[in-house]
């Protein structure tokens, strides 16, 4: 195998693939990127941690010799990154080593045979549909922050994807707050409601792969895997085998205290109050009066922060505690100038959304005071 590329052609695909590779592996070859150069000039780079597999393709136009090999992913990425912009890089397999040359730099990397690389077994999709990269990227951005991290309720360490005829809805929750976002402008051709849980790592790697491009990608989901692919990449992830909680039951209904507030101002007030909240628990108190929201934070050092924000609210007084990080997350990801809070009492969850509803909704459980 031998080929010549510009640094920029190789670096981005390598970084995408290397992102999947774990720092510590159970098998040495899992630290490697599998490179396969086809007769037609397509160079495929593959990285896997046996849960998530990423294949990125680059089309070469120069002279090349087809072949396949695996090399240490991090080292190759670091070499490419450190070379000057627009350098031309030659890669060549020679005596079980990979020779990387560029200008006056030469590197010899150890290689492991391509045949040892764990091949992804071809799997049957149960459903498949198309949507734009932008659609998936937006859904992930709107909800990804609410996924649990290493929770014993392992089914929360991922994102629920729920697909029906013309709705693509995603839900993430860590048990304390919940984020839901949906796109209702697509035709999936799926009759029933189909759902699966994509693991946290799969979501974050997929997000790195997507941009705001309106190009379509193919999505295929089987009993235990999900695949998202385009001309230039194929992303495959195992699914979380578990039952996602019945999230619709916890969407608050019948809250009678409606507050409209300026998003940017609230976001800034929350982030200032957060400075003096308890570092670990992050609790703040919200006191709601006619037209005024007062945010108070205390910490064990007896320091105190007070923030006042003028809001549109007419009703009885309410005091309610929240983890300020959750409020910050929501005010960061909503886009409207004004946001709407629906509350009922200090023990019930709050619903936060755009005034007209928008495509996303957020539920935050209070802290008991």
């Amino acid at each position, binding site marked *: 195998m031998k080929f010549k590329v510009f640094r920029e052609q190789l670096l981005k695909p390598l970084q995408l693939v290397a992102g999947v590779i774990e720092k510590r592996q159970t098998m040495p070859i899992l630290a490697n990127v599998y490179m396969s150069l086809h007769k037609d000039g397509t160079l495929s780079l593959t990285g896997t941690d046996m849960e998530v597999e990423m294949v990125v393709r680059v089309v070469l136009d120069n002279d090349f010799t087809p072949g396949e090999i695996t090399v240490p992913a991090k080292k190759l990425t670091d070499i490419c990154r450190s070379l000057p912009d627009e350098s031309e890089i030659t890669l060549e397999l020679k005596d079980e080593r990979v020779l990387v040359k560029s200008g006056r730099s030469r590197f010899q990397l150890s290689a492991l045979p391509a045949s040892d690389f764990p091949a992804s077994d071809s799997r049957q999709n149960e459903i498949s549909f198309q949507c734009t990269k932008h659609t998936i990227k937006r859904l992930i951005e709107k909800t990804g922050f609410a996924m*649990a991290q290493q*929770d*014993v*309720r392992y089914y929360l360490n991922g994102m629920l994807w729920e697909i029906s005829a013309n709705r693509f809805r995603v839900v993430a*929750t*860590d*048990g*304390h*707050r*919940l984020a839901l976002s949906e796109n209702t402008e697509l035709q999936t051709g799926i009759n029933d409601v189909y759902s699966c849980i994509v693991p946290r790592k799969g979501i974050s790697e997929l997000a790195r792969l997507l941009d705001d491009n309106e190009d379509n990608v193919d999505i295929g989901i089987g009993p235990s895997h999900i695949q998202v692919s385009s001309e230039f990449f194929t992303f495959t992830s195992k699914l979380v085998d578990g039952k996602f*909680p019945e999230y619709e039951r*916890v969407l608050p209904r019948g809250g009678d205290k409606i507050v409209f507030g300026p998003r940017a101002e609230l976001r800034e007030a929350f982030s200032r109050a957060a400075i003096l909240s*308890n570092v670990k*628990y992050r*609790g703040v*108190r919200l006191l709601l009066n006619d037209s005024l929201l007062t945010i108070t934070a*205390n910490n*064990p050092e007896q320091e105190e922060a007070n923030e006042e924000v003028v809001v549109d609210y007419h009703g009885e007084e309410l005091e309610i*505690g929240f*983890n300020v990080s959750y409020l910050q997350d929501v005010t960061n990801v909503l886009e409207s100038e004004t946001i709407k809070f629906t509350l009922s009492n200090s*023990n019930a*969850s709050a619903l936060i959304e755009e005034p007209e509803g928008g495509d996303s909704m957020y*539920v935050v*459980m*209070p*802290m*008991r*005071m």
Partner: protein
Amino acid sequence: MSFNNQRLVLHCDADSFFAAIELRDRPQLKNLPVAVGGRATDRGVIATCNYIARKFGVRSAMSTAMAEKLCPNLIVLAPRFSLYRQVSEEMHGIFSNYSRCIEPIALDEAYLELDSDDWNICAEIAKDIQRQIESSLAITVSAGLSRNKFLAKLASEWNKPAGFKIIRDEDVAQVMSQLAVGKIPSVGGKTKEKLAKLGIVTCRDLQQQSLDFLTQHFGVHGQLLFDRCRGRDLRTVKNTWIRKSISVERTFSNDLVRDDEISAALNSLVGLLDERWLRLKSGYLAKSLFVKIKYSDFSLTTRESAFSGYIHSGEHFSPQQQLQLTSTAKTLLTSALSVKNASIRLLGLGFSVHQGDQKQMNQTDLFM
């Protein structure tokens, strides 16, 4: 000497506490080798033993079977923990007559910060405490008086039982130079071995080494070695005993092998933990659950997992909490057994806790 540490520290350690209490109530055993612990047939271990038994090589934490091998005439008494707790409480009551700042270490041991920095006055206090405990509880304590916790403990161990030693500022250099490194708490077998390889056997050897050298070889532990070998210890006596964990455990007379046995044992431990948790005075918050496993080859492993939601002490677990804890415990156990699947001798279950602040807000959960 650091200026903010003018007060003197007294370390009191009751001599073979459990055994002493048993002997007090059974004077006829006084001149025989006596230990308190579980029975050999139940795989018991020795909790403590008197000084006669120690001459045969019997030590606490040794299996009873082993102890009986070393000392065939050993009399092993079943422990009576509620009695020991009661005596311990009385002992702490006596301490509190002399100091407002007491840090209990176990039932039988405590550090006291004394209000005076006069060595003679403090020595009198120490002797008073020893006398009073002996006359009212009929057990003896060894006491050590010095400038800090480390030196005070060293002093109390100097001539047990019923000993008393003062390590004054001017004695520190002399005492430390002759001390073996193993006498520094936290220097166990491995560190000792590593030190020996570097040619360091006594604290005097250790004093020759630079802080850089020690940090390089022992990481953060290096600073501790550097300080202790010079008799330095900046830890203060902490007035309240802050509980860090609460746990229950069971040693099984027959090793657990089958899943259903393990499962049943786990369920009963959850019940026991619930009882302990209920009895614990209010104000603790459980932050994570841990499972402790001792295999039949005595190797020990623990698994810990934080959980969402908050569990307050002084209340029974709710049915949901009970379910969550049981399933978390099972997950932890499965994870441990996936690494090493051998028969189980001991199973423990507990919480890491922090002190719940009354003003602390607690996150509520969507799905509970």
